């Protein structure tokens, strides 16, 4: 039947149209009516628990628990209930209190069912602990924590104590330890949920545990400054605290207030006993032992590299608070649930956005003001019990992930896409929130970490490209008088360039109010930039044109060489130091001009001239620099195209990474002013990224199991060589920028009166400091990655085990034995 359907649908004027004329007799088959099987119903109810503002979540909780316990003998329903509950815990953390509530009620009606959920959860928890998947561990423990009233004795506390003991071991072993901090975080984010649960009398244990975590959580980790969104040097006030130190303070103050936890829902609260109609007491349920969980010693670390997390809010310091203050535990609890939801659901950004928009369904009704309440209306609410603006809280969480240092969990474009979807679902509610976030970020441009400024720039342009490039540019119009190297001016120019890269100059010009259009110079509107040799006035103009014609004709090398020689002879006769420079300039500029039609045009031009370009690069360092200069000069008005070509030239190894750095940080540094250009930062980051990616691949190859001599030594040699090259690269950046940051760069000294006190001098030194911070961090992160990965690699000299012992080798034990023997 399916095949028939398809055939009839495939042409216009097929079945549909025919029937449309047949008014009185419609033979379209009716959809067969059927009752939805119960297990499908339960599945749907469970999956959509608490999602609707029209239903009460408490009713969902009790309804599902009742259906499932009434039909306890239906194996399909039972299995679905257990599995889907845990799936939701692991994928939609905001629903954990509701799922746990359902299990609580179900357990009180049918303890067998409760036990079944517990044993399945414990099985999953054990697996994630053994894998070192700490986010999943956190979520499962949170779920088990709310079930505290069903356990005998101390319930979940011994497990938390054991995790703490491991954290202490790790911290004592090394002050640089991060895994211990992760364990402390898990404990911190479990305690409120245990205290939320209907169990009573655990205040003492919670406080005792909190006292213990205090020492670890309150000691600032050395890496916190490295990953801070604001460096303390630039902006002491904005530099955030680490998530665990904030949480520690918040927990202590919450403990003093009797664990009010006002944002977290207690959907089991108005459950009533079926017989007595009294509020249900969960104290009297059948108690079961807390499932046995083994925490290995030492605890393993998972795939995700750990770094301290710093709390960032783009709505800090507004005249009216629209998000919870950092003194309020709600800020951490809501943020944590949202962040996990965002990062876990990267495979469906539409669903993520939907959850963010529906955020008010998952917390207590007094937590938020009504959706889409305008900011001005919030001002009038001051003084009343302060609820927060749901859109701001949601958007804040996405930005915290987009601006995660040293790296976000997913590709940055994921977070772009979540914000785009949020805007699509609720434009009137989200757009003003984004507007205020943009203003905060714009005003922070001078002091924010430079990497983050650039992420902001990239997101801003990409976001606008999804919404017709509309932005209230007029509010920044006064800043257009700032010097070009001011961070705000650099942002505006950079944003317009990025918009053009996603669109085209005339279109962007049309979206700009006065006086912005002047920023889109006539050069930017030209699809094909002028060929400088077309002007008779230009030196070598005749040869330049000749070269261009030859390249266009795809002439052979033999035809090209005489023209090159002619340029070099002429240069020599004029006393030019390196005659290769004018000849390279003419050649590369001609390539760019002939290839200006599209990326594939320029690529095929490069492909054909590859050998010549490789020879130029090999022969003279300065000529290699000239290749970059010519490309950047030709595309000076469309820098996006220029850096794309540079990127391809790196792939062809016509350029080396170091030559790109030399070009930017020495040859063209222009007294440090080049550091203000976003596309230069982009180019350097991409170049360094190429080197570190390659390094990581080699490290991965070196670290793979079952690798023996002689391959081991071969890979190790490559690794040592490339590692030294990478270090040299970072050193080059460090050395060149340190002088800019200190104001002692030669060109800087020569600027103006040389006093270093001109207004722009301070700005340049700041650019220097911000660049340094980014690349020092990159260097540190890469070094840490390499040493972590190599810690467990097979040592050099390990021979393949004799064939008879191969079986033993497979379980990895042998490797460890060998390691000891070394």
């Amino acid at each position, binding site marked *: 039947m399916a095949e028939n359907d398809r055939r009839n649908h495939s042409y216009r004027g097929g079945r549909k149209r025919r029937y449309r004329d047949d008014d009185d007799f419609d033979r379209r088959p009716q959809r067969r009516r059927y009752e939805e099987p119960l297990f499908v119903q339960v599945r749907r109810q469970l999956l959509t628990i608490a999602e609707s503002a029209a239903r009460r979540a408490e009713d969902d909780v009790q309804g599902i628990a009742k259906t499932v316990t009434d039909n306890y003998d239906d194996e399909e329903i039972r299995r679905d209930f257990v599995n889907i509950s845990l799936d939701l815990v692991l994928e939609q953390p905001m629903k954990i209190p509701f799922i746990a509530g359902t299990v609580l009620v179900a357990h009180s009606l049918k303890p067998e069912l409760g036990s079944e959920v517990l044993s399945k959860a414990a099985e999953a928890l054990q697996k994630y602990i053994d894998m070192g998947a700490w986010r*999943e561990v956190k979520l499962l423990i949170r779920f088990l924590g709310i079930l505290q009233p069903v356990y005998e004795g101390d319930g979940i506390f011994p497990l938390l104590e054991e995790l703490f003991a491991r954290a202490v071991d790790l911290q004592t072993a090394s002050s640089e330890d991060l895994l211990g901090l992760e364990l402390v975080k898990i404990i911190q984010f479990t305690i409120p949920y245990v205290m939320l649960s209907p169990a009573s009398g655990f205040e003492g244990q919670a406080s005792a545990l909190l006292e213990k975590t205090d020492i670890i959580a309150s000691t600032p980790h050395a890496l916190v400054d490295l990953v801070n969104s604001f460096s303390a040097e630039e902006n002491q006030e904005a530099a955030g605290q680490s998530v665990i130190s904030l949480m520690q303070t918040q927990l202590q103050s919450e403990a003093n207030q009797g664990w009010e936890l006002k944002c977290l829902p207690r959907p089991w609260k108005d459950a009533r006993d079926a017989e007595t109609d009294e509020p249900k007491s969960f104290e009297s349920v059948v108690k079961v032992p807390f499932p046995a969980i083994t925490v290995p010693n030492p605890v393993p670390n998972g795939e995700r590299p750990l770094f301290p997390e710093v709390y960032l809010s783009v709505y800090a310091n507004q005249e009216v608070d629209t998000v919870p203050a950092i003194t309020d535990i709600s800020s951490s609890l809501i943020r944590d649930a949202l962040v996990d939801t965002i990062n876990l659901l990267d495979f*469906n950004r539409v669903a993520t956005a939907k959850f963010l928009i529906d955020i008010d369904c998952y917390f207590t009704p007094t937590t938020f003001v009504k959706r889409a309440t305008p900011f001005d209306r919030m001002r009038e609410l001051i003084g009343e019990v302060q609820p927060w603006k749901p859109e701001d809280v949601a958007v804040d969480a996405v930005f915290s992930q987009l601006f995660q240092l040293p790296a976000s969990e997913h590709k940055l474009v994921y977070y772009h896409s979540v914000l785009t979807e949020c805007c699509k679902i609720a434009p009137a509610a989200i757009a003003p929130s984004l507007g205020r976030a943009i203003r905060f970020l714009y005003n922070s441009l001078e002091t924010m970490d430079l990497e983050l400024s650039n992420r902001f720039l990239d997101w801003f342009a990409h976001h606008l490209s999804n919404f017709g490039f509309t932005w209230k540019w007029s509010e920044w119009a006064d800043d257009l008088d700032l010097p070009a190297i001011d961070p705000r001016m650099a942002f505006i120019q950079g944003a317009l360039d990025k918009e053009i890269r*996603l669109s*085209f100059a005339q279109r962007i010009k049309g979206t700009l109010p006065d006086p912005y259009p002047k920023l889109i110079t006539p050069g930017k509107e030209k699809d094909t930039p002028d060929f400088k040799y077309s002007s008779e006035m230009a030196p070598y103009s005749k040869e330049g044109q000749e070269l261009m014609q030859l390249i266009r004709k795809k002439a052979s090398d033999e035809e090209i060489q005489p023209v090159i020689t002619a340029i070099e002879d002429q240069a020599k006769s004029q006393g030019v130091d390196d005659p290769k420079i004018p000849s390279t300039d003419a050649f590369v500029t001609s390539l760019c001009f002939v290839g200006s039609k*599209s990326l594939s045009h320029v690529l095929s031009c490069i492909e054909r001239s590859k050998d010549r370009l490789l020879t130029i690069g090999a022969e003279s360092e300065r000529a290699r620099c000239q290749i970059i200069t010519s490309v950047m000069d030709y595309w000076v008005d469309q820098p996006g195209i220029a850096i794309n070509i540079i990127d391809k030239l790196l792939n062809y190894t016509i350029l080396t990474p170091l030559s790109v750095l030399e070009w930017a940080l020495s040859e063209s540094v222009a007294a440090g002013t080049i550091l203000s250009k976003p596309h230069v930062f982009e180019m350097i980051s991409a170049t360094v990224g190429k080197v570190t990616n390659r390094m990581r691949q080699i490290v991965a190859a070196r670290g793979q199991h079952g690798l023996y001599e002689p391959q081991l030594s071969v890979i190790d040699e490559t690794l040592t060589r490339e590692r030294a090259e990478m270090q040299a690269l970072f050193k080059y950046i460090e050395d060149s920028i340190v002088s800019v940051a200190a104001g002692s760069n030669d060109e800087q000294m020569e600027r103006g009166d040389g006093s270093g006190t001109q207004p722009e001098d301070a700005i340049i030194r700041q650019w220097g400091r911000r660049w340094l911070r980014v690349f020092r961090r990159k260097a540190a992160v890469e070094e840490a990655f390499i040493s972590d990965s190599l810690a467990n690699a097979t040592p050099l000299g390990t021979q393949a085990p004799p064939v008879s012992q191969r079986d033993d080798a497979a379980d990895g034990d042998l490797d460890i034995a060998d390691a000891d023997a070394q």
Partner: protein
Amino acid sequence: MSLLAVNTVDRLDRPSAYYVSKNKRRRFNDREEEEQQQEKPDDKLKDATTLYVGNLSFYTTEEQIHELFAKCGEIKRLVMGLDRFNKTPCGFCFVEYYTHQDALDCLKYIGGTKLDERIIRTDLDPGFEEGRQFGRGKSGGQVRDEYREEYDPGRGGYGRAYDEQRQREEDEYGAGR
């Protein structure tokens, strides 16, 4: 790092219904062959690094496509879809990444968002082969641009087949007068 067998919400990184149904139909026609192949439609896409990108404007350039798609990883190759006769862009392209993961991420994060102010479509593709860069419609472009009743300025106006018919009718009307 989730170990779940099924996700609680749909995944956006699956092959499209178009790709799956195209395969089904083929298998329906060649029943015997099917038995020999026993191939699931996803298998060919198991390590796919290429994406088909559709609903582009005819005016969207390689650079624009590169700019957006590079956000999901380095691009290995970009093949513009061309009108079979004019060799001008006809609104689709193939983007090849270096890794399968980049291609999946692209489906999740870029498919269904806007490029050049049009919502673009991405679909996992088993890989570009010479010849596939050309439109398969009667007049050289994509089939969908033959029969379109709505005016789409980014894709050559009305459907070409209708355009032709309209032109003919107009000519006849003019001649009659």
